[in-house]
């Protein structure tokens, strides 16, 4: 395979502990590559460091050690101004479809803001916004409306449109479907896949849900307490995990099928008894 679009080498992140001098190591020298047009899943439970890795790539948390390379350039410690230039290439979709849109701005303004910031004229920006709204399958009338008028799934479509509007090459998706209802979740995942096929954008897909990983990710890295414990193809890791933690994670996720779930539960009880012994 050619050089990856994004390469993370031995990345370490420390968080200050409130009220103490010591720090907490959230990421423990992890390495990860994402190719162009590829969707890489980052799966783990709360506190595993998966969101921290996403934030570090976005430049939202300071890096303690290691290196992040994007398109051949070192972006580990960028100045704010250099970061702003990178905004055209790396974008984000957050988990919370309620908090991630400024409630006092219209959808049109929310989507045009990244474009006008980059120096595009308002008319050209509006045209791009219109196209993007079409892309995420929202009616063009949403431009003048405000975030609170939309359901969670519709807001997430708006957030995706905002991420895509500058035609980035990588989008960090931080649990983008976990706040959504099941039926909405499936539709949004399909949208992610379709947009990736159409635009060739890469995704870093942060999630706690192995089902989501299986559905959208080409490759996956499993995180546990700041370390990557297993990497591999999305379908093989989620069907046939090698690492003991990944196996426990898989066996703990209930399946929507009573017979299959009874078997899985039996396996989970076995694993639990093994690890207790």
């Amino acid at each position: 395979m050619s050089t990856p679009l994004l390469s993370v080498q031995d990345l370490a992140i420390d968080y200050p502990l409130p009220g103490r001098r010591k720090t907490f190591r959230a990421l423990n020298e992890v390495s990860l590559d994402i190719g162009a047009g590829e969707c890489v899943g980052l799966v783990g439970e709360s506190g595993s460091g998966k969101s921290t890795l996403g934030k570090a790539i976005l430049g939202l948390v300071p890096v303690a050690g290691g290196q992040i390379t994007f398109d051949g350039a070192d972006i580990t410690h960028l100045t704010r101004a250099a970061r702003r230039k990178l905004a055209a290439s790396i974008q984000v979709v957050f988990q919370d479809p309620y908090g991630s849109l400024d409630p006092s701005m219209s959808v049109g303004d929310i989507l045009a803001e990244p474009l006008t910031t980059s120096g595009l004229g308002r008319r050209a920006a509006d045209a791009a916004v219109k196209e993007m709204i079409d892309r995420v399958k929202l009616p063009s009338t949403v431009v003048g409306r405000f975030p609170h008028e939309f359901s969670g799934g519709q807001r997430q479509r708006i957030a995706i449109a905002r991420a895509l509007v500058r035609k980035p090459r990588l989008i960090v998706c931080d649990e983008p479907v976990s706040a959504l209802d099941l039926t909405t979740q499936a539709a949004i995942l399909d949208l992610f896949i379709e947009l990736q096929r159409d635009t060739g954008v890469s995704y870093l897909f942060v999630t706690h849900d192995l089902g989501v990983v299986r559905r959208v990710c080409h490759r996956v890295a499993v995180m546990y307490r700041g370390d990557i414990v297993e990497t591999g193809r999305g379908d093989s890791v989620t069907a046939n995990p090698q690492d003991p933690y990944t196996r426990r994670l898989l066996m703990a996720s209930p399946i929507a099928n009573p017979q299959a779930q009874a078997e899985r539960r039996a396996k989970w009880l076995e694993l639990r008894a093994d690890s207790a012994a």
Partner: protein
Amino acid sequence: MTAPLTDNIDPRAARRGSVLGRFLRRPAGAISLGVFAVVVLVAVFAPLLAPHDPNFVDLSLFKAPPSAAHPLGGDSTGRDILSRLLFGARTTLIGAAIAIAVAVGIGVPSGLAAGYFGGVFDKIATWVSDALQAVPGMIILLIVAAASRNSFTFIMITVGVFLMPGYFRLTRSTTLTVRNEAYIDAAIVSGLSNTRILAKHVIKAVYAPIIIQTALTAGMAMGMQAGLQFLGIGSANTPGWGAMMNDGFTAILTDPLLLLWPSLALGITIAALAVMGSTLSDVLSVRQPAPRRKRRPAAPSSVDDATTGALHYEPAAAAVQVRNLKVSYPGADADIEVVHGIDLDVAPGEVLGIVGESGSGKSQTVFSILDLLPAAGVASCDALWIGGRDVSALDRKDRHKLLGSKLGYVPQEPMTNLDPSYTIGYQLIEPLRSVHKLGRTEARERAIGVLTRVGIHDPARVMRSYPHQLSGGMAQRVLIAGAISGHPSVLIADEPTTALDVTVQAEVLELLRELQQEYGMALVIVTHNFGVVADICDRVAVMKHGEIVEVGDVATIFTNPANDYTRELIAASLDDAASRTELDAAYDTTERKAVNA
């Protein structure tokens, strides 16, 4: 001091419709604004309106009664009261404006910077603001007055400095809230500069509370100014309401009117500002529905409307049976019904799942059974059988006697469902002592017993802990321990694993299953996750928009769902869905076909 009115400002409200329009539609808003506008006009046009020079002394006017030339009479120096009153408005407003300009000018920018950037500046600015609030301002004002030879401007600037912490704290806390919103992170990633983020996103959230704060702070500034004038501070040639009140107060026994006019002027102006602030706050606030006292309407709802769901057991044999349950909330115009008449029951020893997406009414249903709906919600039903008895007619107190002993409840979010101020031990022992009337040692032993039973290895230490010292999974075990400590016959769990990690979810489900079998309880479990249903439930009711679309045993529902929506929900679970590799392969094939065709 931060005014109390800025607590519930809804950032969306600043935009919804015309704020001014809604402000003026309220009588309090229109009247207070009108009064204040009159004061402002009087202040601006005082030289034109005043019949006399406010400082001209006419000895014949000494405490003179009202006359045609002097409608309010004269003061104790022989000056025209009306003229002094009109010019006093000017002094009052200019003074307040100076103080507000200083307070806003320092407080808002420093609050923005402290809240947005944090760091050392935040620490220093917060300390200075706190220190200013610890100094009795009047004493410093008197020093400044003496030092500046009673300079009106200097005094009002100092007043502004003492009013500054109110703005600083308000701006800082609002900014801090906004700073933590994901949309600010999104704006940073979008490439916006700090200046632009502050100007476009933060200021918008800050300005409404500041306007409200200003209405109240202006009143406080006027009060302080008048107070200083009352103490005799300020030039004798500047007509001020406080000075006039002092003049009137010395003559209170002989000429009470001298005190009345300036007091009225000051009181009305400050009250108008206060009411303006309060009305604006109301207009911009999140609407809280008025709670209703009436609980269950006496008359049973009309018989002809159809219910959804089905009953499987004789009422007396069911652990819980509810007939034609409706739940409604007061809306803007009429009541909004969120559960539309459902029938549901569960037998002892049975696990019933209630499954649906957000807004389906599944949680409302169980809270109605528990009688723990939010204050505004109203539930009605034809019958509610719990443990072989129809309890629908019982009053609230008797209904609540069922809680803990007949009905146990396990909530969704473990970290917010324990009282943060009490130890775990206290929270477990309190109901055992006060509800179940156990003795001290007995209650303690029972608490330790249930904690051990739910898988906590170190119950004595956990009993001494506070909720914030526990992990989410541990807190959920504590909550389950609390729910079963009274040996209820029905355990109602509202999304008990949704907030938990998958590995913890499996543990909690396993625990619930064991406890249910051990105690022979009926378990009602509310969830949106069909995996959870498949794992633990015997029967399941599928809800959508406040109705039960299908109810049946788990095997049938999964293998042969009768309802389209049930089918759609099960299909939306990703377990058996095609993986990305399979999807891509299929896509490539169709693409190739399309190209070949």
